[in-house]
């Protein structure tokens, strides 16, 4: 009996030791595998995310409360966050850059890395074009940036990327657009439905790429007119977006995850224009700028009633949005305290802008037609007349509000009346540029980055800067966004080299194409 016990115990002992023998660690691989992650990416899903993330970087902080304040689409009375309106430095706009690199730039780079098989050439081209779209917006805001070494922390262990000169970035982006467009092969697969922009339609991607080439080429007019003309003409020859059917629009749903929702609406509702604020007690204190509203009102622009509301407190217990044209009123830029009757200033229309299902206009025929107008004025285009392109641009810009739902529909009658009242006037090149690009500024609201870039290139519309005491731009409208604070401390060598090349890291420094 005793012996049995001892044997039994011995068996127990041996088995316990066996269980615990560390050499026996077969289960370690299983234990260290995250059940909620996969080891190789599903490239189409990564591409979808890269497309969406081009617009997900704190729209409010980076665009509305910054750039939109610079160019007086919006105004703000608070000091805590009114940095854009009053040209104060603030890190929030710069932080968006980090978000972009860690999401869309990183993702699109991975898509490119995983699409090197010749069979994937169309996917590769889509990804290359999208990368140009993402990168040009960033370099336009900041100037020199990590480009050739961007987002390579894992692939090359490049933890401190060098900054490329903006001139080099532009040169490569334009070449990429050219090469990627030519590489399309109609017989090969695309991302199909995972491509949220065009469902994998190669023809549309080509038009999109050439339209982007038109935008980028035109950007060079101040710094390198020769190349500007070369690329603009190449774009026109390639075929840009001209019809409503071809425009690049990101569509959204009102899903439970905010990533599926329109990021502009999400951010505006989240930061300011909540359903229960009724035009009052806005967290950050924004309204439409009176510069913008006055322009729209003086031109009897039918878009004002589509995009703007004031709050009617006739029944104090049930304030309602009021889109009446005559009641719209902008708020002066540079205020430091809340104006009385704050609710009577115009803000985004809940029925159009503040819809989670609203679209984001990525690149449309409104813009291409405006740029073709300029190309024609410059003699770089032999198509239709400048006025014809201008009218097409305005029509498209107004027509597109219909994509925001029934409240956004502007009738052809109204559009035609507007055009009749405001024809593309004859005049000097500068006068025509002024009318054209003021219209560009009026039309491109909510793509604040592009509006700001176009204003810097053309100087139109002419804006009166506010001179808030203690501003960081000597009372002039800023010319760029400052790098995120972390760059100076973490990547100081390359950061300093960039500043030595393009000028100090200030709001007033001009980027390369803005010389």
């Amino acid at each position: 009996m005793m012996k049995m016990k001892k044997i039994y115990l011995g068996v127990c002992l041996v088995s316990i030791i066996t269980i615990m023998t560390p050499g026996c660690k077969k289960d370690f691989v299983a234990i260290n595998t995250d059940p909620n992650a996969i080891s190789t990416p599903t490239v189409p899903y990564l591409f979808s995310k890269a497309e969406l993330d081009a617009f997900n970087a704190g729209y409010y902080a980076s665009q509305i409360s910054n750039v939109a304040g610079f160019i007086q689409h919006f105004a703000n009375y608070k000091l805590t966050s009114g940095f854009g309106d009053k040209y104060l430095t603030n890190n929030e706009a710069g932080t968006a850059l980090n978000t972009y690199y860690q999401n869309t730039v990183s993702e699109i780079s991975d898509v490119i890395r995983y699409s090197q098989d010749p069979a994937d050439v169309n996917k590769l081209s889509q990804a290359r074009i999208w990368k140009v779209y993402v990168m040009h917006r960033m370099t336009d805001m900041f100037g020199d940036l990590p480009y050739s070494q961007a987002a390579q922390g894992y692939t090359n262990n490049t933890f401190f990327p060098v900054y490329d000169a903006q001139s080099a970035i532009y040169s490569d982006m334009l070449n990429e657009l050219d090469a990627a467009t030519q590489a399309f092969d109609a017989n090969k697969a695309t991302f199909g439905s995972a491509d949220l922009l065009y469902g994998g339609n190669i023809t549309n991607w080509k038009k999109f790429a050439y339209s982007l080439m038109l935008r980028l080429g035109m950007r060079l007019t101040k710094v390198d007119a020769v190349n500007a003309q070369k690329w603009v003409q190449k774009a026109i020859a390639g075929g840009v977006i001209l019809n409503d059917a071809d425009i690049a629009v990101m569509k959204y749903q009102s899903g439970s995850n905010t990533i599926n929702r329109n990021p502009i609406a999400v951010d505006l509702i989240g930061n300011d224009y909540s359903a229960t604020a009724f035009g009052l007690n806005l967290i950050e204190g924004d309204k439409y700028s009176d510069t913008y509203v006055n322009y729209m009102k003086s031109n009897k622009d039918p878009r004002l009633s589509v995009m703007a509301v004031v709050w009617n407190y006739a029944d104090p217990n049930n304030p309602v949005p009021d889109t009446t044209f005559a009641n719209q009123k902008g708020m002066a830029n540079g205020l430091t305290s809340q104006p009385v009757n704050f609710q009577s200033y115009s803000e985004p229309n809940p029925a159009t802008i503040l819809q989670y299902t609203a679209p984001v206009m990525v690149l449309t025929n409104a813009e291409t037609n405006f740029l073709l107008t300029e190309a024609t004025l410059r003699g770089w285009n032999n198509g239709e007349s400048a006025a014809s392109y201008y009218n097409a641009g305005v029509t498209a810009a107004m027509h597109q509000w219909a994509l925001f739902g029934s409240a956004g529909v502007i009738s052809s009658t109204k559009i035609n009346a507007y055009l009749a009242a405001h024809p593309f006037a004859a005049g000097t090149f500068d006068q025509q540029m002024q009318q054209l690009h003021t219209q560009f500024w009026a039309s491109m609201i909510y793509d604040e980055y592009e509006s700001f870039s176009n204003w810097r290139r053309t100087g139109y519309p002419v804006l009166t800067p506010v001179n808030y005491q203690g501003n960081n731009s000597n009372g002039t409208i800023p010319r760029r966004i400052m790098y995120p604070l972390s760059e100076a401390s973490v990547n100081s060598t390359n950061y300093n080299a960039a500043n030595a090349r393009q000028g100090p890291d200030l709001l007033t420094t001009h980027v390369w194409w803005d010389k």
Partner: protein
Amino acid sequence: MLITAQLLLAKTSNSQSIRDETITIEAKNEPLEKTLKKIEKLSGFRMAYPSEKIVQYKNVTLLKETRTVEKTLKLILDNTDLDFKQFEKKIIIFEKNGIKNPPSDAADLQGNIAGYIAGVLKGKVYFDDNSSSVPGASVTLKNDQSVGTITNNTGAFELTIPDKYKGTAITIVVAYIGYIKQEVTVTDINSPLVIRLKPASSALNEVVVTALGIRKERKAVGFSVTEVKGDELVQAREVNVANSLEGKVAGVNVSSLATGPGGSSRVVIRGSGSIAGNNQPLYVVNGMPIDNVPSTPNTTNGSGTNLNVDNGDGISGINPDDIESISVLKGGTASALYGSRASNGVVLITTKKGAAQKGIGVEYNSTFTAETPEVIPDWQYQYGEGKFGTPVTNQQDAISYGRLSFGGKLDGSNVIQFDGVSRPYVAQKNNIKNFYNTGKTFTNTIAFTGGTDALNFRFSVSDLNNKGIVPNNSLDKKISNLNVNAKLSKNLSIEAVAQYNVEDNFNRPGLGDALGNPNWGTYMIANSVDIRKLAPGYDASGNETLWNASGFATNPYFVVNRFQEKDTKNRFIGYASVKYNLLDNLFIKGRVSDDNLSYDYTGITPTGTAYAPQGVMNVIKYNTAEINTELTANYNTRFLKDFNVNVLAGGNKQQHTLNGVEVDGSNFNIPFFYSLSNVNSVITLPKYTKTAVNSVFAAADFDYKSIAYLSVTGRNDWFSTLSLDDDHIFYPSVSGSFILSEAVKLPSWISYAKLRGSWAQVGGGAPNPYGINLTYSQLAGSTIPLQQISRDASGNLIVPNNKLKPYTSQTFEVGTELKFFNNRLGLDLALYNRATINDIVPANVDPLSGFTSAYLNIGKISNKGIELLLTGRPVKANHFTWDVTYTYSYNKNTVEKLAAGQNSFFLGTAVNSYVSIYAEVGKPYGEIQAYALKKDAQGRTVYAANGFEEQGNLVDMGTGVAPSAMSITNSFNFHRFNFSFLIDGKYGNKIYSGTNLYGDRFGLLKSTLPGRDSGLPLNGVDDNGQPFNYTVPVSDIANFYDNRKNISSFFVYDGSFIKLRQVILGYSIPTNSIGSIKIQSLNISFVARNLLILYKKAPNIDPESTFTAGNEQGLEMFGVPRTRSYGLNLMVKF
């Protein structure tokens, strides 16, 4: 007399009883002495017996069986004239003798000792420290050791002096283990001797608990170990027991936080050893680790985010009443057997067990305390609400300037306030008192013990009920603990512990930034507005009542009345061990423990919140399990006559699993209906991690004649989180001690002297799971499939590194323990040098690399320090004793190395990044960086054109971690009264005070008074170095002081303090006066914690008001006010 006896009992409560300790022994017709020696070896008890007497008894035969030591001795001494008695770790065997009751003092003795017997020297031996007699002491002739005897159970002896020595001077030697040998020269053989033995040292006999729960004699331990007895923790209590260690152990830096009663504690032993990793010790209960990871949403961070609350940590789930002792294993050597988790030291908790006894023992402990805010800010009360030196004139302005006290002179006139009502313009000095309640904590524990030699148990139930000082905040914690010990057969014994906790927290207060923080507005409201007028905090439609310009500074009453926070922790800690004796000196032991937490959290930011009008709802549910399985074998033998060796070898398998789900919802579709079914946007995230570490370890302890000791340990860990081909690390240690006072003769005033030294290499910061390879994850809740690179638990993108190892911490330590003047004075000194090499540094990579950080094994951080413990008994009289304990520690911490090219590593930041905390190369860990006031070369202040002081450079202000700490405890015993108080202090650190920065911005600080009447004249230079003379107009004073937020160095203060930490005044009620119930003891005490701040430099705050248990120490800002607590404690034993 009685009190000293109690003290003695308390001291020895740790020793095991011969009634409980079992041995397995057989004897086959062997001499009695041989059997006794066997018992000595098997039981660990030392035997003292009169050798010359025991040889006369017949041989012993005993069947092999497991019995208690007591029973074994009874069997073998059954037919002898010998009796035995346990005294501490010794068993005294002596001749039975007719005297029943020993005399109580020397006077009685004279009468009891018979007169002269020719050739026989008589006498009696007493313990010097408590006057009881000493049975079993050996008495020998100095120059003829063959002449000797042993004292009987009354301490008396008769030594027959051989005739040959008659007429010569006789010297006898009286010896007793643990006491100083005494030589007495007999001048008159006819006069009976009275000999008093002085203890050699309590340290000689003291047993301490070391790694894996192994008990060792203190003198055998080659490293610093401090033990805190459980009874020191149960009178003046802390809700989190870890906070009770504050001021009790040299070298242990406890930061109790300003986060409310259910919060965490930060314990750092001998300085921060890791740059970015966990710096807190491993908590071990009964030899097996428990999980101290704070519950998520994590303990607060510096900047403070939505519902920024401290959800408590693992150690807060241990009931102090269940604790027998806490051993703090400070150095690496002490904890080396825990390998990769031991780098920050180990806090080893041993819980109470049952004992064989007649009937059931019952202990009841009840404490009631009240808590009130400890520090009331000293604001200015001359000027009231307003911005421009005048009172506000309309409701809009009253809201806009709701937190500004830059108004007119408080003159009692009627002035409109935020709600449109005009009230007298007078100082509101009681806003803090009026908003906060008096906190109440009521703790009741009842414990039952009982059982037999074969099976005994202890069962306790505890209920802690706390009503926080923040209205509607409460905590209820119930802990039940069952400990069962059983001897299943003569060789097999088992022990099992089952603990079950239920903890319910309601409305833990938000901290740090203003959002959802009830403390923010309470402190910052303009000084002429009565905080109570903000109640109830919402209007008729449920929206927050606005009281200031920022929607983020939430109305305090809105927070306490409308925000909802509830978390429930159900925790089970199970422990089971089986011990089997294979041979008399070889046993194996298997242990399993499981610390299992089920956590359920709901946080609601309600509809109508100014900064989130449509509301937010977060729900988190998860389970964590920390499971340890361990098998050890222990072999003990003697070799080369004087050497004893104990060898231990074993293996451990550790697994930690977290499995749960987090649901984040926002925007309630139907206002005020708080359900996840009603949110407009919802994201569900799985939470899952699993890690495993397999280990083998071995230790050998050598003992030479109880004079010199040497211990060698080694442990090898294999990690699931490392790549398979390179996944293990070895951790060695060696330590030794030498009892100088045993080896050589020292001057008589040195009672005891021990030297010790050790070296160890342990590890820490095992990599997080899933960090080897780049992986991709689906975006939860998306309507279309979206994928991205996987983030870590905090959402960071970290470059995978499959070469990452736990860092290595090397400790070298020397120390000494000395006792002087018959133990009236004791000194324990330790010097250590601890270096962490290959520290895991999350090198900040450029975010434009696509990642936030890359973990690299390259950091180095060193800690050098000294620890001193002095104990003394300045006064000792019959009914009065005074004991003093003093501790001092100094730790020099230096960050030696970070990643290449990296000079500083960011640890955390205050709200709005006014200051930040860094680990900087060449500086102590946790350097606070703030902006200086700009001065020119001649030291003149530089002013901007508008008169604002200009911001200077970022400068290092000093570390947020106190390098020095000191404490002194005085205990007095007088008859039935005892009184003790603990004073402790820390110094050498800095603290950033957000409360003062905002108090300055908003005109509450007295330092904002200059210039209020007629403007503030400035004298300095302008940007061009030209003299600048300007008077800031009264209307601009608010902006002038507000601008000081940019010069944050103004608000970094010396964080030193001295506090009257604890006071206990107790009375032991005579139990014979309590009627028929049989009460063994009854104690009632007045208890108080954090009674007074005796010294501090930081104004308006308690310098201990940090609000995170994380590595970013030294930030204060609107935590829950720290409280002083006082109340009554009742302890009854039946």
